[in-house]
């Protein structure tokens, strides 16, 4: 592999990075929203969300991307590739994140909640001031796991023509008939991207351990 190949790999890495980054950011928040809605147990909506989470988790990403991209025009919304990709990744990751957040909700210390309510805090205030700060750190391993999965499964978006990191390696190996070197190089770049996340998690955890939570 020459310098030009590395340059292309880096370009692919950037595509992977920004598309996953946007999806992660939206997905984490939407997941939180879904978890909150599910905690409210609104009759019909709850069933709907359960079905969504279940289906979105079970659907392979490739299928989802392709479906959104191809069915988009039929449904009257012409999605650009990037939008379709981000939408698919977000739909997928939000379902997983919803479960992670929900897990934090249901296992949150009942004693602490009671202490907050007894002080006259509303549920919202309790959530914002007592629960969320602790959930952020306690859910971190789960959330970062999910982020790593999202980044790693992002190659699926290549199916609609986005040139992400994995696509670049396919292009290279299609000419050289040597799949291993570009795959290893791409693996290295993936590890670099996810490594940054793991590093951030470690830092946050160190900070939280001061609070012994």
């Amino acid at each position, binding site marked *: 592999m020459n310098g*030009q*190949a590395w*340059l*292309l790999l880096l*370009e692919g890495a950037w595509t992977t990075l920004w598309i996953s980054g946007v999806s992660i950011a939206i997905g984490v928040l939407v997941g939180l929203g879904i978890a909150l809605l599910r905690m409210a147990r609104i009759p019909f909506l709850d069933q709907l969300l359960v079905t969504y989470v279940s289906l979105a988790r079970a659907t392979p990403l*490739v299928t989802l991307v*392709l479906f959104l*991209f*191809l*069915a988009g*025009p*039929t449904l009257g919304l012409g999605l650009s590739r990037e939008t379709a990709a981000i939408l698919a990744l977000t739909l997928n990751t939000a379902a997983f994140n919803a479960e992670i957040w929900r897990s934090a909700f249901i296992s949150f210390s009942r004693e602490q909640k009671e202490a907050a309510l007894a002080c006259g805090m509303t549920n919202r205030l309790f959530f914002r001031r007592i629960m969320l700060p602790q959930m952020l750190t306690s859910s971190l391993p789960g959330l970062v796991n999910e982020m790593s999965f999202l980044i790693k499964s992002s190659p699926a978006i*290549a*199916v*609609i*023509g986005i*040139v992400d990191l994995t*696509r670049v390696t*396919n*292009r290279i*190996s*299609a*000419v*050289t*008939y040597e*799949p*291993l070197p570009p795959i290893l190089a791409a693996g290295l770049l993936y590890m670099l991207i996810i490594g940054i996340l793991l590093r951030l998690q470690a830092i946050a955890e160190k900070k939280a351990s001061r609070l012994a939570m």
Partner: protein
Amino acid sequence: LTAQADLADVKARGYLAVATEDDYAPFNFIVDGKPEGFHKDLLEDFKAFAGKSGFDVRQEILPWTGLLASVASGQYDMGYTGALVTDDRLRVFNFAPPFASAQHYYVKRKGDDSIGDIASLSGKTVGLQAGSALLARLPELKKMLEAGGGKLGKVVEYPSYPEIYADLANGRLDYVVNSVTSVNDLVKAKPEVFAKGLPVSGNGFAAWPVPKNSPELLKLLTTFMQEVHASGRLAELQQKWFGESFDDLPLEPITSVKQFHELANIE
């Protein structure tokens, strides 16, 4: 699926959207970030040709996995890539006049002397792409082998060819079947590892898939192909990219299974 546009719509829109691949040497692939290959060269001619009809050609690059589905669903007007003609694809697509033969050949490790003539393939492990045109026509090889008293060995299906070649080199496979153009390209790229074998099927064709409901577009493509054939440009490009020119290709579009079988001598 309404986004399909026949020629009239294309002209109204001002451009034709074609889908190409990026990892299918020698038809179309990417070198240093830029498209290369047979189709890249032919696209120049096609663009000029289309300009005369008053529209532009826009090329989008997708992986093979999503390509046929995207064309079928109308995201693109046609596939501008080396799709092999098969019975099942003919149910959804018409094919423009072919630009290359896709007769199937086997490839073996260089220096593997246990393989030579077709009979020697008997009982050996073969690798091919799952669901490919190659797989669809494997029965022809089976018949050849059985005619000589041999039998088809274990068939291993892979999602794509790079892995198949890797396993051939690793020794997990004894031989691989692919279309002649691909085999030529492979052997050119890695002459010290692989060696080209013999044909293992009747004639086959690589051509552009066009949705069934775009007859006008198909007509236009037929005219174009006949033009480049007549001018010798096609033969020149075939020589350049495939290492040989295919002079006896049909000049008519392939639109039915029956027609295809006649052309390819399949009974």
